[in-house]
């Protein structure tokens, strides 16, 4: 299991990249709601982002409340990892 563990820095960078692509496409789609190409790109970004967020939560704690998994733990990990403005944060 340990050898499959993704590099935290790389995974976080990927989440930032794919999330930004999704954000920017969201704004574009707001004013171009019928743009096929943008719709396809949004779908692609969304599935990659969801996968990456789940993977990050599994190894390094949740970044979103929807990926907070409490099934195999007896403590609330949301508050454990550093906050984004702190050292070691995202």
């Amino acid at each position, binding site marked *: 299991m340990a050898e499959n563990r993704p590099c935290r820095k790389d995974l*976080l960078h990927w*989440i*930032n990249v794919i*999330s*930004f692509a999704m*954000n*920017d496409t*969201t*704004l*574009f789609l*707001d*004013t*171009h*709601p019928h743009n096929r190409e943008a719709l396809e790109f949004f779908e692609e970004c969304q599935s990659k982002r969801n996968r990456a967020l789940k993977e990050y939560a599994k190894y390094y704690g*949740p*970044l*979103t*409340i*929807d990926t907070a998994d409490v099934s195999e733990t007896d403590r609330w990990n*949301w508050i454990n*990892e550093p*906050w*984004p*403005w702190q050292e070691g*944060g*995202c």
Partner: protein
Amino acid sequence: MWNYEKRLQYPVKITQTNPRLAQVIISQFGGPDGELGASMRYLSQRYTMPYKEVTGTLTDVGTEELAHLEIVCAIVYQLTKNLTPEEIERSGFDKYYVDHTLALWPQSAGGVPWSSTTFQSKGDPITDLHEDMAAEQKARTTYDNILRLVKDPEVADPIRFLRAREIVHYQRFGESLRIVQDHLDSRNFYAFNPAFDLGK
């Protein structure tokens, strides 16, 4: 409603403190063209916006501005971390420190508290979108002004990201204005206010 995401939209990792620069950058938190005002402007205007594309744009840009506010605050926080009383005095940060210690509080670089008087929510789609386009340009100029004073690449990098977003938002608001005008009478765009006179 909103959910928090525990990451910055663009990362901030500043290793060298600079309280003098923090006092300038804090203007983009609580100054007249800052991110708090930007977010409140769009999130306030959206309720009476009659066209769905534009309501969506105001909601999503207003949400992104909250993420920008967090980036600006992270920059100011890291620029003022672990300061000694001597550093505070020497940098002129003492006037802020006496009231707020090292906490974040929305004010302009000149010390004026954040105020909703820095923006309008007029209830007329044409008027509101012109306000929004102007606001994005004013914020872009402020970031340009900040960039002239920044020597540290760790600070300049996230500021450049924020500057670039102002330009994208300006573009989206321009498209929003076109969408509004497409719904109106091109012989007289001001014949009626679609947020008031139509009851829709």
